[in-house]
Every structure is written in C-alpha cells, then in structure tokens.
C-alpha cells in the first residue's frame, strides 16, 4: 500500500508541485492544508504517514503546527519545506521534532530522497 502524505503549504502552486512529484512516484497524497491550523486538524482526521510542512503560513506557522502535531502523535514524521535564509526556523522545527527539511526551490530528487529517508 502506498504511503499516505499530507501536503501543507499556503501557496496552492507549491502544493500542486509537491503533490505532482509525490504522486508520480507512488505516494498517495491524501490531503492538503493551506495553514498550520488546518494541517493539525487534517492530521488527526487522515493519520498520514508523512507530512510536508511549509514554514511561513498564516494562522499557525509550520513550527507551531509541528509542535501541535507532535503532541497528538509523538511519532509523526514531518518534513519541513523551507525557503532560503530560514536557518533559525528550520532548527526550531527540528528541535520541535521535524525529521528532515528541504529547501525551495527544490528538485524532485531531493524531495523524494528526504521522504524516503524520513519513512525509513
């Protein structure tokens, strides 16, 4: 059975891009969210195997969402999608429990590598 993925990003364009990469490579994108709060809710509903999480988002940002999700499920696997120059935030996210990170603009290979490693 294919791994279930939840894609979180405030830009529909980015969501579509990630969804495309993953679904072409055998993953099943079971849900999308455009902010942290919705991401937490969707996580509870869908129980995905992995989450790709943007950092800068309205309502609740990616780091806040990681913290919330980790409270619900300490074993949650979350992959941060960061932009350049967000080193400090990525570190915060990893301390909060994120497994790995990728940096925009990303190459499909990098996304797949990170997802595979995080699921290993």
């Amino acid at each position, binding site marked *: 059975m294919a791994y279930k993925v939840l894609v979180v990003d*405030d*830009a*529909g*364009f*980015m969501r*579509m*891009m990630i969804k*495309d*990469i993953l679904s*072409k490579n055998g993953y099943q994108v079971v849900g999308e969210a455009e902010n942290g709060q919705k991401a937490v809710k969707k996580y509870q509903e869908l129980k995905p195997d992995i989450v790709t999480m943007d950092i*800068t988002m*309205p309502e609740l940002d990616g780091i806040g969402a990681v913290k919330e999700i980790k409270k619900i499920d300490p074993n949650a696997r979350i992959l941060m999608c*960061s*932009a*350049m*120059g967000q*080193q400090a935030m*990525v*570190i915060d996210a*990893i*301390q909060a429990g994120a497994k*790995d*990170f990728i*940096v*925009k*603009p*990303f190459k*499909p290979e990098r996304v797949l*590598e*990170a997802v595979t*490693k995080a699921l*290993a």
Partner: protein
Amino acid sequence: MSVNEYLNLFLEEAREHLQILNDELLKLEQNPADKGAVDEIFRAAHTLKGMSATMGYEKIAELTHKMENILDELRESKIVFSENLSELLFKCVDALETMVENVATENSEKFNISGILNDLKNFNQKDIGITQNHEMGVNNKLELNDYDHNLIKVAQERNFNIYEIKVEIAPECVMKSVRAFMVFNSLEKLGEVVKSVPPVQDIEDEKFEKDFIVVLITDKTQNEIAKVLNQISEVEVKEIGSLGLINGSTPQETNSVQEISSFSKTEDAKKGINNKISQTVRVDISKLDKLMNLVGELVINKTRLEQIFRTNDLSALNETAEQIDRISADLQTVVMDVRMVPIEQVFNRFPRMVRDLAKELGKEINLIMEGKETELDRTVIDEIADPLVHLIRNSIDHGIESLEERRKKGKPAQGTLRLSAKQEGNSIIILVEDDGQGINLEKVKSKALEKGIITTNQLEQMDENSIVDLIFSPGFSTASQITDISGRGVGLDVVRSKIQSLKGNVAVESKEGQGSKFTIKLPLTLAIIQALMVKVGPEIYAIPLANINETTSINLNDIKKVQDQEVMVLRNHVLPLVRLAKVLEVPNMDNYESEELFVVVVRKNNKFIGLIVNELIGQQEIVISSLGKFLNGVPGIAGAAILGDGTVSLILDIGTLF
C-alpha cells in the same frame, strides 16, 4: 516534468500576491506602526520568491529575496518605515508586476533589475550598518587545550571511546548550518561532543567549507555512530577514527595547544597548515578617538619637553612631567578598555543549551541571566566558556530536582537557574546559582573518604565550607556515568584548575534542600593584576593576590621542624613552610638574617603553604610582561613587571614554584 503545466496557476497566484503587496504597502504608508501590514508584505514577498524560484524565474526570485532582507530589518524594528523606503518598495512591486506580465505574454521576465537591485543595496548600506569583520581561515587542524586534554584523559581512564569524526555535507546543500546542527544533535544523544573544528560557533554561522571534524566521547561503537549519522540527509560520514592516546606531557610543555598527530586516517589533519585565525577585537570607534586624542596630547608634551631643554625652565619641566604622568595613565586605561568585550558573547549560547538539557532530562528550568553587558578581557572571555558550561550542566543535572521530587518538596515545579556577572573593583564576579537540592554534606564526606582524598582525622578538623570545597578535589566526581549531563565523568577539579590558570578562583556555597551557588572570581584583565610585592634578601618579587590567603609575621624561633619539613602553627593548624630564598636560589642571603620574618600564606591545590620572605613591601597593581621567547617557561615564574623606578621584578607562579 514541464513547468508550463503550472504557468497559469503561477500567474494567478503571483498576481494575487502582487495585489497584497500593493494593498498592504498602502496601509503601511497610512500607519507606519502597523506591524500586521509588515508581516503580510513579508509573507507575500516570501511566497512569491519561493514560487518564482521553483519556476526558474530567477530575476523575480532575486528581487523578492533582496526585498525580504529589508523587510526583515523592518520587522525587527532595526530600521523605520520612511518615505524613501516606501518609494523604493513600491518601485520594487512595479518591477515585479512588469516581470510577471512579461512572463504571461512572452514567457520570460524580460526586465533589467540591476538598477533597482542597486537601489536596494545602497539603501541597505546606508541605513543598516552591515558589519563584516570576521577573518576566516581554513583550519583543519585539531587543537586541544588543557581543558580538553583533561577531559579526554579521564575519559580514557574510564575506558570510553574517543573518536574523531569527519563529516562532509553535500555540496548542493543550501543550509549547511542546519545539517551540522542535526549532526551535533544526533551525536549528543550518543555521547559527549568535546570539540569541533572549526568551533561550534563558526559551524553555526556556516563558516566552514564542506566538512568539519568533531571529537566525541562515547560508549558506542564506530558502526553505531555511522548508522545514526547516515540517517541524516545530505550528510556523509567521511571518517571515524580513534583519537589516539594523548601523551601525558606536563602542562608546561604542552603550553596551551597540542597537535594530535595520531588520528590514523585523516590525511588532511596531518597536512593541515596551521592558518591560525588571528584574534580580533571589534572596537567602539569612540575608544579609538580617545586614544588618538591622548596620543595628540603626548606629542604636544614632547614638543614642550624639547622647548624646556632649550630654555632650562625647571618649573615647566615639573608641570610637563605631571601631564605626561596623567596621559600615560589615561592611555593605559583606554588601551585596556579596547581589549574588553561583553560577556554576552559567552552567555548567548546558554539559553538554548539549558532548554535542550532541560528537555532531555524532563525538567523545567527558568534561566535568568543578568549582567550580560559586563566586560571582560578578550583572552579571559575565550577561556571562561568551558568552565561555565560545566557548572551549568552540573546544576541542571545534579542540582535541580525532577518535577515529581520538586512537587513532593513543595517547591515550584520550575527550577530556577541564575547566571549573573558583575564587576567588583578590579574583579569580575560570575555566579551560577540554582534552587535545587544543594550539596549533601554526608555524601561528600563518604565519597571523599572512599576515594581517599582525605583521612577520617583530617575530616574531623574540617568545617562545613572546607567539606563542600572537597568537590573541587582532583579525583572527586559525583558523576558515575559518562552519559551524565554534567558527566563526562570529569569532576569540578578541571573547572577549578582552569579558573586558577586565569588567575581567578571558584568557590561554592550550598544550603541543603535550597540550592547551591558557585562563585567565580576573575581578574578584570590578565594583563594587569593585583600583586603583593615582597622582598627576599635583596630581590623583589610579586605574588599575585589571587593566590594569597593571608599574611602573617613569624619569629625565627617559632619555626618548627616535622620530619625535615619546616612548619609553623597558625591558629591551631600546622602550616608547612617554604623558604622562598631557598627555592629561588637567592645568593648572598647571609647578609639578610633576621629574627623577624614574614609568611605569605598561599593556596595551591586546596593546600595552604606559607612562603617565608624578609619583608612585605605592599600591594600594587602590576602590568604583566612576558619574559620573551628566549626565557619562556621558567618554572615558578609567571612573567615580569616593570616597577615604578624602571627596574624589573619577577612575578611568581605559585602553581609551578614548588
């Protein structure tokens, strides 16, 4: 996968974000204090940047990136929103709009952004002081100081593995520092990272090429380490090798650095040329102005001296001499001042360390830091970090109790760790206080007896303070496992010896059940110290005040002998005596025999020893000069000082004197 599939979606969203940019900029113009608007603008620019970079529209990405830099400054209130800035940002938005529309019609940005980038750059430099002042050097050589040596030696004695691990980060990685952070994070779960090349701070600041070296003390095997590290993306373990036996050379010979040549596999480490990063100090320009003024005054007075020489006017000579005296004193003060840096540099790394440790141990800790602005000599700052880390870890691990325990005792669940620095006269006092369980006297006693540090007889004569002080004794360590936080299995004796090498001292006070307080006292600067000047026969020596406990006088008849060792009785305690004239081989002492002698009681490794001298001259501030390379490392001599009359006096080094 073609980007064209996304083009329409991209254009749609890009236009939306441009709209937000325009709207929010207008809002901001109306109300420059509107933080919400700044956040919105930032987010819109940021999202646009990510999208366009992914689509390969590099000019849009670059422009939004540069905008972000300025917006970030604005968000952090480092700059204020001005009419100029508003103009500039609108100009940027216009340029973005043009580019996005060009993409829509011709599938290309078709726009020259160099002009506007230049405007952004100029704005940045004009309004934000950009400081770039770090000298970088590729330094692949592992240098260990005394402190590291001690740690490693003890770890070796306890059969822990000491590995030198070379980690390489993939060249395409864009956030090297974060990968490095993940490496450190993982390693710290396996053991104790004692050293890295380049230093952690530089790695955090991404001041390394592609690889770095970490020294780890652990009970894990090489395979276990490699397995954990290889789970991290974009990270490759190049080498893991045992750090060979560090030979037991004496501290004098080791000086402060030693090259580890036994790292079996690292070619680079051997080849590594020592491009030692020269120490630099960032200086407040006003201090330099002061220096210039003083030098100016000096030149004026020099001219006056030449005039006096021609006119023979003695009263003017006196006046000029006084002037020069004042100027040189001021010069000294300012030059010393230039060497001073705020302790903030060291303190800044503690909040995260405390947070991580507390989390790891399941404790809640409130870290209070005071006196971050307190200034210390640059050389002291570099050396004080390690001992402080040790004390803080010690407090968190052994001092502050677990949540349940604190609840049981009726204490607030959150423990408090207070770190403070302040200046007192010519000293800097650093306190590390916690409201934990304090030090258990009975435990200390039994441990000290068990380890053979003291005998039951000695113990009976000791007061509470002296007993608590035993925790600083070599060989006394409350940590039984290396994996202990404060652990490394190394005791506080390393902390004390480090601080003593800085001409300072460390003491502990503890109230059982209420907490403990470590007090570090350091001289303001290493270059100037308070010393007691003494006369030994015809010669004058300086003894650093930091080493002195008290002085007393003695009559020749009161010197007793116990098994060839001269001693005296001081307040019911037997104090061993050392004749300075003898250890310093002072010639012609026959002419200086007298009934009345003086004793300077100094402390060396927890023991008090009385130094017999002929005369106490008095306390004095002295500037330490080196004896030069030719006479370096004379045992018992820490350096020389030039006295008021121009003669040179030697400064005794109690640690190596006898």
